């Protein structure tokens, strides 16, 4: 059965149609409108500040999509996702800065795009490495191995060794003009926003396509009951590692994108808190839904921005507030998670579904 609400008179004669994109005219219209908003209205009519916030939402969503895939679709709880983003970010930066690219690639502006792809592959491989224990362990033990990924990668390897490459000390910075895709130099909020929009759209397409294929069904089967999945003939180790690879790939690409946003890089960008944050994003957005990852990112980033806007006028009276904004942020994060777990454990995606149902069932309630 098709998963979307079909109006009367729309039906499917094959499974291909049944799993198709944009099954009704209304959905087609809605999605085209959404694309128009993302690619035309926001970049053309809104301020740089809004775009930078939107880029932050996109970056969070890129990470959250990977976490969603692992936790929400395959049931592998991970608390080390920031490590894979970091691997991607460092891979991309080092490739751009240190790799002896042939001149024609530099001229064509392909160094950065290639480095982002390689970052994805590296992130994926690194993720699979730490996903290997998932063949044997589940639950809390798997959480521990993913946390190990965080500390081994960021706090040990990156901080102690990788960030010293080139003798630059702790932080890398990318000179202006090094980040370009073909002739397109990414040097302003608008360019970063466009890059984010393209990457995020591609990621959503890839993930949504994977989820409606055999691979996606295998993941969901493993999540729901791994033993039953295995009896159905699913090679669960292979599919779990594939989930780790895809999530790691997304993380690596996200890391590659992050570089374009900051033009600088340091291990502090990828604290363990960020891994936790991404899990919080999908809890708030809704576990097991692509919408959820995006809604959650939107909610978290926008709430934090509003918090900042709210705190600034208060700073005159309580000067310490600005100083301890980080802890305020953590408090708000904790509060939001608690509130969602109590009042809406199914997340924002469920609310969205309810809102759609309210109108789909009109004028009745069921």
């Amino acid at each position: 059965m098709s998963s979307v609400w079909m109006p009367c008179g729309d039906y499917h004669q094959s499974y291909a149609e049944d799993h198709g994109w944009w099954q009704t005219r209304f959905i087609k219209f809605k999605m085209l409108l959404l694309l128009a908003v993302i690619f035309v209205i926001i970049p053309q009519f809104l301020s740089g500040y809004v775009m930078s916030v939107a880029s932050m939402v996109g970056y969070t969503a890129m990470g959250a999509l990977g976490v969603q895939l692992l936790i929400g679709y395959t049931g592998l709880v991970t608390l080390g996702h920031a490590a894979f983003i970091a691997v991607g970010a460092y891979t991309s930066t080092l490739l751009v800065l240190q790799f002896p690219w042939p001149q024609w690639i530099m001229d064509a502006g392909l160094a950065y795009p290639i480095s982002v792809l390689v970052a994805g592959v590296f992130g994926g491989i690194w993720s699979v490495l730490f996903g290997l224990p998932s063949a044997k362990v589940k639950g809390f033990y798997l959480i521990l191995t993913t946390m190990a990924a965080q500390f081994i990668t960021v706090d040990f390897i990156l901080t102690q060794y990788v960030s010293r490459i080139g003798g630059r000390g702790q932080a890398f910075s990318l000179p202006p003009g090094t980040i370009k895709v073909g002739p397109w130099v990414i040097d302003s909020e608008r360019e970063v926003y466009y890059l984010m929009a393209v990457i995020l759209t591609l990621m959503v397409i890839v993930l949504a396509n994977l989820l409606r294929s055999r691979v996606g069904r295998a993941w969901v089967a493993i999540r729901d009951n791994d033993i039953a999945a295995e009896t159905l003939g699913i090679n669960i180790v292979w599919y779990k590692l594939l989930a780790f690879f895809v999530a790691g790939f997304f993380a690596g690409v996200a890391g590659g994108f992050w570089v374009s946003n900051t033009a600088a890089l340091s291990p502090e960008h990828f604290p363990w808190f960020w891994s936790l944050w991404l899990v919080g994003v999908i809890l708030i957005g809704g576990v097991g839904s692509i919408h959820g990852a995006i809604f959650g990112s939107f909610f978290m980033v926008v709430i934090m921005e509003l918090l900042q806007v709210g705190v600034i006028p208060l700073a005159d009276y309580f000067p310490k507030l600005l100083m301890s904004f980080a802890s305020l942020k953590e408090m708000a994060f904790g509060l939001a998670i608690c509130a969602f777990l109590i009042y809406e454990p199914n997340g924002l995606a469920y609310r969205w579904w309810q809102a759609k149902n309210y109108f789909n069932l009109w004028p009745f309630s069921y």
Partner: protein
Amino acid sequence: MSSTRIEITKDLTIPKLFVRQCKKFGKNKVAMREKEFGIWRPYTWQDYYDNVKYLSLGMVSLGLKRGDKVAMIGDNRPEGLWAEMAALCAGGIGVWLFQDCMMDEVKYIIDHSDTKIFVGETQEEVDKALAIKDQCPKLEWVLWDDPKGMRNYDQDFLLSLKEVQARGRELDAKEPGLFEKMVEEGDGEDICLLFYTSGTTALPKGALLTHYNMLTMGRNLLDVDPCYETDDFVSYLPFAWIGEQMMSISCGLQVGYTLNFPEEPDTAQENIREIGPHVMFAPPRLYEGMTRSVQVKYIDSTWTKRRVYEFATKIGYKVANLKFEKQPVPWYLKILHWLAYITMQKKLKDHLGMSRLRQCYTGGAAMGPDHFRFFHALGVNLKQIYGQTEIAGISIVHRSGDVKFDTVGTPIPQTEVKITEEGEIISRSPSVFKGYYKNDEATRKTLVDGWLYSGDRGFIDEDGHLVVFDRSKDVMTLSDGRPFSPQYLETRLKFSPFIQEAWVIGDKREYVTAVMCIDYAVVGKWADDKKLNYTSYPELSQKPEVYDLVQKQIEEANKDLPGPAKIRKFVNLYKVFDADDEELTRTSKLRRAFVEKRYKEIVDGLYGDTDVVHMDTTITYEDGREQRIKTDLRIQEIKV
């Protein structure tokens, strides 16, 4: 959209038309779809043709001769229709049985019709056939199409449809062209269907219908309401009901629209919504069911949604009433109507699967004016149909834009309808049947000089519309000597979502009374909301609160009735009337004479001084088990 009108000549048969349409549409058009495993599997006209051809030849190889009977039973599915068409192509005669027929009905029909081949669907139907095989010496073969549960059946006369088709292929290889020859041999005046009418009084009678009967009836209906080959139709009512034959074969084949078969009978309503048919024909109980579900959902809806619903229905009723009276709709009402359409009606029609509906028909029994108005208020072009099996389906229908909810419309082309001096409705058309099978006496009574005597009382009103009063024997005489139709009262009562069935009594009595059957689901939910405890239907029906609820519904229906016709006393029955207890016909008509005998104590109680009736009866379950019931029923009086 295109509609090619097919001329019906005397030598045209259903198989000839079938072959012609298959050649015309071939692989490019979907002939039927069946919902299976979540999707609507299409079968093209070429698939349809191949399946029918080999099935037909297979039946011939099993010894089917021209004029032999093939009985079919099962849910609506492509295989059922293929079997029917295959039998017709081989010159056989199709006999359909209701899916839920009890054993003795099956036995009677199989035996009486001299059936040679029995086509069942699953193990269930095969078991029925096996049980009666010894008592029906003419039955030679039993075929089935669903292998579930059939592994351990090894009788020689059992064959799957696949095996029959394989035999058909062998025969085709041996004698190519045989199928086409068989089809060519047919003549329009040959009998094609033997239709057993359910009969409210006696044993079923087998009506003999010819190809010409069926095709002319379809042609004449299509002349009134054209259909197009791009249309969709959902076939979910039993093929043993003439209405379904008329839509699927008589009209369907001529137009070439796509037939859609639901996944299961239980999912029919949902499947209709998915397909969104362009034309629909169903007995009133289905429309009543829809109205009831809408009313119940409305009660359970939220405040905002209820207000919108109320606004839209109010406007809808206003506009519908103006249309019934053939008055122009003022401009401000048109705007409000548009508003009602976009805020509610469009969506509600979508829920009911009526979004694409051009016209829909109801027939087979009387439909209450309230239900009728309800659908018109929604903007659904619902029309009444009147006819009998004996006239191949229908003779009278409403015309679009000329619908009156208390009439059944005007005759279709080539059809004459008259009222005899006694007030009986008689009709004549090319579709009038040939007679009853092995029952000359009944034929003589029903067919006089080519006129079909319906046994219904009615009159023709000033606009030339036929008004059907009731079955002649059911018309009541009130205390003041006025004739009155109990069916009219019952349909009014059934407009309440809480009432599933009603039986109104009062012929030549001092006052009118009613036996009510509550709707278990709806009243049950109502009781849950009121925190009333109950464990079963009998208990729930006897609750004083439920009696008061039912009384309110009756008072509502009593409102616009003349004094003597008002219901004075009623009783809640401990069960719902059921066809398995022979209280209803298979098409859900109340068998008055039977219930009057069966519930004699209740009738006596209603017209006596007592206020409690002691009941001691047995009820029959669908699997044939019986249970004895002892209970007390309370009689409640209504002040009028």
